[in-house]
């Protein structure tokens, strides 16, 4: 372990490099991409409407760093829309209107053009709702993002693939069949692969849209545990329907209702001592 920390230090000239917890060998290919200096993710007076319906109303949030933030609320409250605003996936809805500001550091997400968007999405990864491997081999699934962003060289990519498969605990399971189609993996394995795929482009944020809802309880728990470990190096924003999951892993909670943020704060605070009437009602199962 001690070697693992010292070597990257040499490489990055004194900058302390955080090494994910599973890495037992020196990892020298990380930091393939420039890291953002300012990684605060904030919204200011964010309003979103689709056609005539007002989906998000004056949302002001700041996502805390290196924590798990859970967005909770009854279905249709705008949780997913808020999450999908962070990487501009709301654009795919026809007739959508975004007002207000969403910023990643100094960059304005709302007005990002095609080129900035690509870089933006590299910085804000997504773990999909249902496991969704790309139609290629396990190896290429991980390497794909790196190739897109200009990382070449087989030796380098080999190391990246191994590193991130190890990070999600998948390496031992798949190391003998890296070049088989990823669709052959089980659902739980696929979801961890998707996670590794997102991690491989070194994002600062991970967005998870009910990422465990399609998995069996055991796989779901594995992914959950991974999130908890990953928060050392990433800031995680997740939308969840199951309040119990939020209570288990959230550090910070945003409660939304009918497109408005009703209450946000430390998980302990919100769950233990909710300030707002609606939050109390929701937590006790009064609203669903």
């Amino acid at each position: 372990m001690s070697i693992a920390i010292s070597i990257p230090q040499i490489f990055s000239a004194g900058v302390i490099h955080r090494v994910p917890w599973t890495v037992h060998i020196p990892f020298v290919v990380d930091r393939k991409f420039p890291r953002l200096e300012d990684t605060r993710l904030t919204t200011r007076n964010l309003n979103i409407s689709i056609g005539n319906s007002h989906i998000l109303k004056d949302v002001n949030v700041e996502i805390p760093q290196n924590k798990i933030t859970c967005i909770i609320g009854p279905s249709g409250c705008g949780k997913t829309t808020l999450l999908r605003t962070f990487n501009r996936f709301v654009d795919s809805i026809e007739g959508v209107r975004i007002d207000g500001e969403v910023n990643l550091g100094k960059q304005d997400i709302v007005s990002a053009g095609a080129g900035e968007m690509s870089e933006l999405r590299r910085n804000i990864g997504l773990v999909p709702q249902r496991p969704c491997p790309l139609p290629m081999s396990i190896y290429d699934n991980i390497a794909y993002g790196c190739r897109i962003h200009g990382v070449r060289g087989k030796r380098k990519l080999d190391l990246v693939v191994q590193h991130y498969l190890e990070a999600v605990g998948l390496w031992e399971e798949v190391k003998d069949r890296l070049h088989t189609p990823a669709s052959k993996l089980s659902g739980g394995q696929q979801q961890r692969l998707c996670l590794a795929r997102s991690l491989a482009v070194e994002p600062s944020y991970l967005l998870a849209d009910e990422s465990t809802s399609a998995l069996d309880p055991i796989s779901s728990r594995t992914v959950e545990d991974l999130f908890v470990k990953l928060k050392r190096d990433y800031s995680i924003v997740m939308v969840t329907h199951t309040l119990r999951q939020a209570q288990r892993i959230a550090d910070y909670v945003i409660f939304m209702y009918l497109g408005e943020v009703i209450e946000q704060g430390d998980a302990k605070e919100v769950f233990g001592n909710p300030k707002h009437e609606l939050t109390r009602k929701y937590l006790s199962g009064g609203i669903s």
Partner: protein
Amino acid sequence: MMKNNRLLKDRIAEQLMAVMTISSLLLVVAMAVGLYLKSVPILQEHSLWELLSEGEWRPMAGRFGFFPFLMGTLYVSLLALGIAIPISLLMAIYLTEYAHSAVKRYVFPLLDILAGLPSVIYGVWGMLVIVPWVSDVVAPSLRRDSSGYTVLATGVVLGVTVIPLLVSLFIEIFSNVGRESREAALSLGATRWQTTMDVVLRQTAPGVIAAVVLAASRTLGETIAVIMVCGNLAIVPSSLLDACYPIPALIANNYGEMLSLPLYESALMFAAFILFFVVLGFNLFSRLVLRKMNNR
């Protein structure tokens, strides 16, 4: 009594409809058998290989070489696909991956029109627009002399006729790719185009091939439009500016004379049989693949 009557009616109707269904299916078999039986006389006279590889077509002298017609069909179909595939693929990608629904509202009726126009109208268009274009623009610029009734003109006309089929098949196939698959690539920072190439096309490759095969079978059978622009010369074309004589044109042009000679009739029916057989194979392959893709 009343009840029995109703059940009886139900039964009889069932039998009747089963017979209708099965007999309409048997049409495929009947076609194969009928056309085969008709082509037996010529197959007894000449070997299959001889018929397909022989280059001389003089029915009155008993020479039945199909080679020029096979080559004409092949060249024309390949050219048509070469024109139609890129256009249709780009158009289908635009319509499924990029376009707003407002754009689709205007483009789909256009495709309807293109799909609905009868082949004789395409033939008229070919004679009025494409043939003069070939003889007055293309040929002079290559310092060649050409009547315009050429492989090139036929390929262009045929290509345009299959564009609507290809576009609608491609759109159907691409729409089966889940939103999540696309988002998986987009969320890594891939551009729309990269997503299309690496996810959509990769995932639907078998379907795209099947669609192309289906379109190929359509170009093989197109008759009237082809006759009107192909030049109808029984030669093996050696360039795009040569005339050609695809198989459907051969059948349609000679149906009047063919009764004069039993072997002549048999030869034309043999041509129809080849056409049927190839088209059947192409269709079976691509329909099975498409069915499998769409059910997934």
